[in-house]
């Protein structure tokens, strides 16, 4: 900006000079504000990271700015909280569970909702209006208040117990009305020509879906996958309600609470477990940032 204005000539330069000074000041203020705002948002996170490396004594003693710095003084105990969280509290087992649930949920979510979206958007069949109406209706109704009846459905009507209880956690996360809606919207944007060509070649609808439609819908598939992962990974209450008798099958969020309530647990260990829980989400966020933003974009367009 400034370079071009210098190049344009002496007249504009003199005109812009006071304004430029003001602009620079504004820029500086902008950066300072930005830094302050950012600190507000990440200081607690930094605090979490810092305390996770400290022993209880070090955490209690830290004052002022030292609270936000990791315990570099005792490098030999730097990761001791983490090792305790992994070995003594066995958080890796629950992390593995969460990964497994998420993986199954992602695949099922894309297949189930994708197929439904495809059928509604591209195929012609009697009763189509019924489904579109139901979808629009279910999106508006706040479903979350029915968690207790849902618990009764899973435990009483389906009667899931022991290992099968896991199904009660995974299956509900395989269906998402909102994702069907997203798929419908996206598939409607795919020109019919692709399909026609394939149909002339004699491909079945299923084949078309897997070999043409899905590859064309990579962005929406990625968005759905990312959100499904975040949803399953961050889910706390529902798995907790179902899986309490089976600690071996609990996902990672639920075990955080168990760790909190262990007698003699130190603040550092709690923080370490929180950090461990957050890392996969951070990684996903960094890798798939594009799709997350995209997802929000489509969410914003919705209503």
């Amino acid at each position, binding site marked *: 900006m400034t370079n071009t204005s210098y190049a344009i000539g002496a007249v504009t330069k003199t005109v812009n000079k006071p304004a430029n000074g003001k602009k620079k000041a504004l820029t500086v203020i902008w950066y300072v504000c930005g830094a302050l705002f950012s600190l507000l948002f990440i200081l607690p996170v930094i605090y979490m990271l810092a305390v996770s490396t400290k022993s209880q004594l070090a955490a209690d003693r830290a004052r002022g700015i030292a609270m936000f710095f990791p315990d570099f003084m005792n490098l030999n105990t730097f990761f001791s909280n983490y090792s305790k969280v992994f070995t003594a509290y066995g958080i890796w087992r629950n992390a593995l569970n969460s990964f497994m649930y998420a993986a199954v949920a992602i695949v099922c979510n894309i297949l189930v909702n994708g197929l439904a979206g495809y059928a509604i958007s591209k195929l012609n069949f009697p009763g189509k209006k019924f489904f579109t109406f139901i979808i629009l209706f279910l999106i508006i109704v706040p479903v979350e208040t029915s968690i207790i009846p849902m618990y009764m459905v899973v435990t009483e009507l389906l*009667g899931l117990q022991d290992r*099968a209880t896991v*199904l009660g956690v995974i299956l509900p996360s395989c269906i998402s009305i909102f994702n069907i809606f997203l798929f419908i919207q996206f598939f409607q944007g795919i020109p019919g020509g692709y399909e026609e060509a394939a149909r002339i070649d004699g491909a079945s609808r299923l084949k078309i879906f897997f070999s043409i439609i899905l590859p064309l819908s990579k962005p929406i598939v990625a968005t759905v996958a990312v959100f499904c992962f975040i949803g399953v990974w961050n889910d706390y209450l529902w798995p*907790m*309600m179902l899986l309490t008798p089976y600690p071996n099958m609990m996902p990672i969020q639920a075990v955080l609470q168990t760790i909190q*309530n262990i007698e003699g647990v130190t603040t550092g260990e709690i923080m370490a477990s929180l950090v461990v829980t957050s890392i996969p989400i951070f990684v996903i966020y960094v890798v798939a940032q594009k799709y997350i933003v995209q997802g929000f974009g489509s969410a914003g367009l919705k209503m």
Partner: protein
Amino acid sequence: MKGKRFLVKAAVLMLAVCCIVSFAACGGGGKGEEVESRTDKYGNTLVTIMVHKDSSTKEGKAYQKCVDDFNAAYKSKNIKAQITFVAQTSGVDQYEATISNLYRQGGGKLYDIISFDAPKCAGYAKSGILYDMTSALGDYTDNFISESVNRYDGKVYGLPIQESSAGFYYNKVVLNAAGITDGEIAGYQTNGWTFEQFKAVCEKLKAAGKTAVDMQLAAGGETCTYLLYPLGNAAGGEYVSADGKTADGYLNSAQTKEGFQFIKDCIDNGYTNYQIDGKAFLTGDSVGMYLSSGWTIPDIKEQYKDNFTGGWGILPYPHKSGSDAVSATGSWSFGITNNGIRNKDAAVELIKWMTSDESATTITNATGMIAAKSTINKNYEATSPEGVLYNQLVNSGKARPSMGAYADFSTEFNLIITGLRTDSVEKVLNEHTTSLQTKINRNDR
């Protein structure tokens, strides 16, 4: 050809869906069948027990040791015990949730023996979770402190693991400085004291510039109920009828109101308030007395001993002159469950073992609490902190109301204590009597 492939694919898809749905639909199907007993692959009778502590705690290790001893002793009889540790948690209480989840599945899924907090006994017994041990135990219950055995409807449903009581901790230096002599204190400790004597002591402490007593009015939850319910009873009143089904005429009776009026007086006269810092008594000298449970004894002996070099002790609960003294009792108990296993012999053996004199000694040594059995005489001195609590337990202990809707009682009790802050005893108690009565009715089926 193409059509065939399509059909195959369709069939596979159908199959997958059917699998999902049928697996979900026929996974269990309601309550499991009753079975005679549970055996492991070596033919041993398997008996399971669940306790509310983590295995890494002192208490957890004590339970583990008792179970190990049991297994060693019963190896020849082919009975094997398995212990599971499920810690209580805030938020979704995992312990409670485990019990209710497994109980509803039936078919021997629930542990044969569970530990539970004494006031929950009635609720569990009523909903059928706990097994009636009256005939199985016979006169075995005679050795326990009578008030500590968990009864509901006259039947025995639980045996206490250990006991705890509460009392008014005092800092001797602070009390002496306010003009309360050692002789006076020892007299209260051995003979009990009345509301008036309690208030007189508070007045002296107030005159000396101290907050007279921290009654933990703002503690909330079960702590609040546990510590304060004896005061409501101490004028001869009751909270609910003996069958736990009527609150009207009990909670709002004149005697119960008098008990609460005592608390209200302490607030109004400035002896206590809702804002006291819970650690003030333990870490300084600004508070004269501190109402707390027996678990504060180890804390004072270890963590806060520097603050109490001048001596300390426990005073019993005060009572209305002319009425009997009442003190808090009730800790955790073991009970056998109705889990769909018909033969309870092994479970009865294990519960007897877990509450035997040796086991009770092992456990109370680990927790520092008082054994709930009269057969274990620890020879406490009458004015020692433990002695005061033990004498209270034996002489004036009174369990919390035994009722199916105990959780609601506890909530209402908390609301009453909160309500005393602003409203009169009369108004608060009348309001919450109706409230409690409807909650009892709501749970009654």
